């Protein structure tokens, strides 16, 4: 079994209203000095069998085209070793 983690973030040049709202709230709740907050998506995907070769490429392509929209977002993908924590 493989566990894949994909983080999808808006590209830096795209305005992130959710991140901005969080930044404002953090400040109001007493956390000073927050200079930037970006909010993205975090996917944890469990797959039977190994994720190698073609399947690995396919997963990359799907992270790029399905899980993220390359026009506005970028992604990072990690395949976790067995038993490694997902965060």
């Amino acid at each position, binding site marked *: 079994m493989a566990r894949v983690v994909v983080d999808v973030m*808006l590209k830096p*040049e*795209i*305005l992130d*209203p*959710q991140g901005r*709202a969080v930044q404002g709230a953090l400040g109001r709740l007493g956390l000073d000095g927050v200079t930037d907050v970006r909010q993205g998506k975090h996917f944890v995907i469990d797959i039977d069998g190994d994720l190698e070769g073609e399947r690995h490429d396919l997963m990359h392509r799907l992270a790029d085209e*399905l*899980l993220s*929209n390359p*026009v*506005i977002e970028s992604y990072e993908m990690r395949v976790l070793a067995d038993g490694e924590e997902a965060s």
Partner: protein
Amino acid sequence: MTRIGVVTFPGSLDDRDAARAVRLAGGEPVALWHGDDDLHGVDAVVLPGGFSYGDYLRCGAIARFAPVMSTLVDAARGGLPVLGICNGFQILCETHLLPGALTRNDSLHFICRDQRLRIESTDSAWTADYQVGDEIVIPLKNGEGGFVADESTLDALEGEGRVVARYLEVNPNGSRRDIAGIRNERGNVVGLMPHPEHAVELLTGPSADGLPFFTSILRSLVGAA
């Protein structure tokens, strides 16, 4: 009679309304199914509003891969007129038939309001019955309607007259340069965030200002035939 396809995806909501608008404009609506890759010989297609596949991932992200879309994308590249409304616009951006993307409203709320727009381009299959500068009021209802694209794309859209409609008075969702709708180079593909199909009868809409989108396509198709 001119046959206009209306695609139903799982989670489409305004498909019946789009069909009603086609009918009121004098066309024949044809129901198209997301899982069927045959366009059944329609003369044009409307991608209606809604939450295709729940829009949980990103609006339009999953619908883009429906069987009907691969046929539709090819046909649109070949000149088939396509109007994407709201979720339909999002799907058109996801398929890259139109540039840019639609992001979370800057208010972070879903918003439903009667929105004033200015028609900026009549050079499209769907806006020929307007005059440039026409001001119309039609419903807007979305949670992710903020149009974004990089500066050069925005400049190109404006420079080439491909902005079809712009928000007036209030920019309801943080769209760059108040853009409410755009078209492709050829003018056959139009994406629009507000909902002209909900402004075709005075009884149920804020106006009947949306009807020309549907009469435009019927006229341009008859003209072309």
